[in-house]
C-alpha cells in the first residue's frame, strides 16, 4: 500500500480567481446601487422641491392678488379724494366769482347757489344799473335768466334774479352726487 507523504491541500470554493471576480462585481454593484440610491433620493427631493415651489407660487399669487387689490383700492381712494378736493376748489372759485360779479352799487340780501343755477335776492338803485352791471354778466354765464322787481321803501328796487343752465329747471340737488364721485367700480 502506498502512502502520500505530503499533507492534503485544502480546497476552497473561493479560489483567488473567484475572489477577484467577486471583488470586481461587488465594487460594480456597490457603485450601481449607490447611483440608484442617489437617483431615488433626487427623485424624492424633486417631488418635495416641486411641491414647495408650487406652494410658494400659490402663496406669491395670492399675495400679489391681495396687493393688487390694495393698490386698486388706494388708487380709487386717491382718485375720489382728488375729485372731492377739486370739487371743493371749484366751489370756492364759483362763490368767489359770484361775489366778484356783484357790483358795489347793488346789495345782495340772499344768494342761493344750486348745482346748475343761482338765485339772487337784493336791492338795486334802479333797473338800468341792475341790467347793465349784473344782468348782463349773468346772462353770459347762464342760459336762462329771469328777473323780477318790486319797490323797496327807500325808493330803490328789490329784485329776485333766477338763473339756470340747461333745458331743465333749476335743480335743488347737485349732480356731483356721491354715486357719481365714487363711480361704478
Amino acid at each position: 500500500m502506498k502512502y502520500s507523504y505530503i499533507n492534503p491541500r485544502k480546497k476552497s470554493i473561493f479560489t483567488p480567481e473567484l475572489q477577484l471576480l467577486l471583488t470586481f462585481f461587488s465594487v460594480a454593484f456597490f457603485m450601481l446601487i449607490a447611483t440608484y440610491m442617489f437617483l431615488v433620493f433626487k427623485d424624492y427631493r424633486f417631488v418635495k422641491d416641486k411641491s414647495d415651489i408650487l406652494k410658494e407660487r400659490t402663496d406669491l399669487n395670492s399675495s400679489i392678488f391681495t396687493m393688487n387689490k390694495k393698490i386698486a383700492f388706494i388708487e380709487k381712494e386717491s382718485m375720489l379724494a382728488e375729485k372731492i378736493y377739486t370739487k371743493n376748489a371749484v366751489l370756492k372759485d364759483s362763490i368767489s366769482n359770484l361775489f366778484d360779479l356783484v357790483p358795489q352799487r347793488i346789495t345782495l340780501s340772499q344768494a342761493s347757489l344750486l348745482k346748475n343755477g343761482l338765485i339772487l335776492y337784493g336791492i338795486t338803485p334802479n333797473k338800468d344799473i341792475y341790467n347793465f352791471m349784473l344782468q348782463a354778466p349773468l346772462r353770459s354765464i347762464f342760459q336762462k335768466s329771469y328777473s323780477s322787481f318790486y319797490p323797496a321803501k327807500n325808493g330803490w328796487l328789490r329784485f329776485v334774479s333766477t338763473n339756470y343752465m340747461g333745458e331743465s329747471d333749476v335743480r335743488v340737488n347737485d349732480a356731483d352726487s356721491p354715486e357719481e364721485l365714487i363711480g361704478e367700480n
Partner: protein
Amino acid sequence: MKINISRPNIYLLIVATILLVCVLLFSFLVLIPNGKKYREQRIELARASQELRKYEDFNNQTLSKLKKLQSKNRYIISAFSAIFNPDRFEKENSVFFESLKLSKLELLMQKNDFDVYEVNTTSKINSPKSFYNFLDSINKSDWIISVNFPINFKREKDMIRSSFTMKVYSTHKKNL
C-alpha cells in the same frame, strides 16, 4: 484543436457571465430610465425655479409699488379711515365762523367700499373770505369732506348766515 478548460474555470466563467448579465440588466432596466427621469426632472425643476423667481420679482415689484402708493397717499388713506368727530370739526373750523353748528351725522349711502355720511351745517360768517378760507382748509382736514350745493347765504345785519350740506366719505363702515 482541442481547447482544454478546467471545470473550475468553466464555473468561474458562468458566474462571471451571470453577474455581468445582472449588471447589464440593472443598468439598462433600472439605472438608465431613472437617469433619464432625473435629467428631465432637473430641467423641469430649473424651469419651475426660474418661473418662481419671476413670480418673486413681480411680487417684489408689486410690494414696492404698494409701499410707494401707501407712502404717497398716507394722508388720504388715514383721512378715509378716520372717524368723523363733529366736536373736533367744529373746534378746528371755529376760526372761520362766528358760529358753526352741525346737524346729526346720517349715513347717506354705502357703495363700493365707501360710506357716505351727510351732515347739514348752519353757520355765521362776517365775510365771504372766511368761507373761502374754510373751503381751503377743508381739503387739508383729517377727513375727506365735500361741500355740496345748495349753498345759501343770507344777510343778517353785519353777518352772513350760511347753510350748506357736507358729505363725509369714509372707508370705516362700523366706527362712524
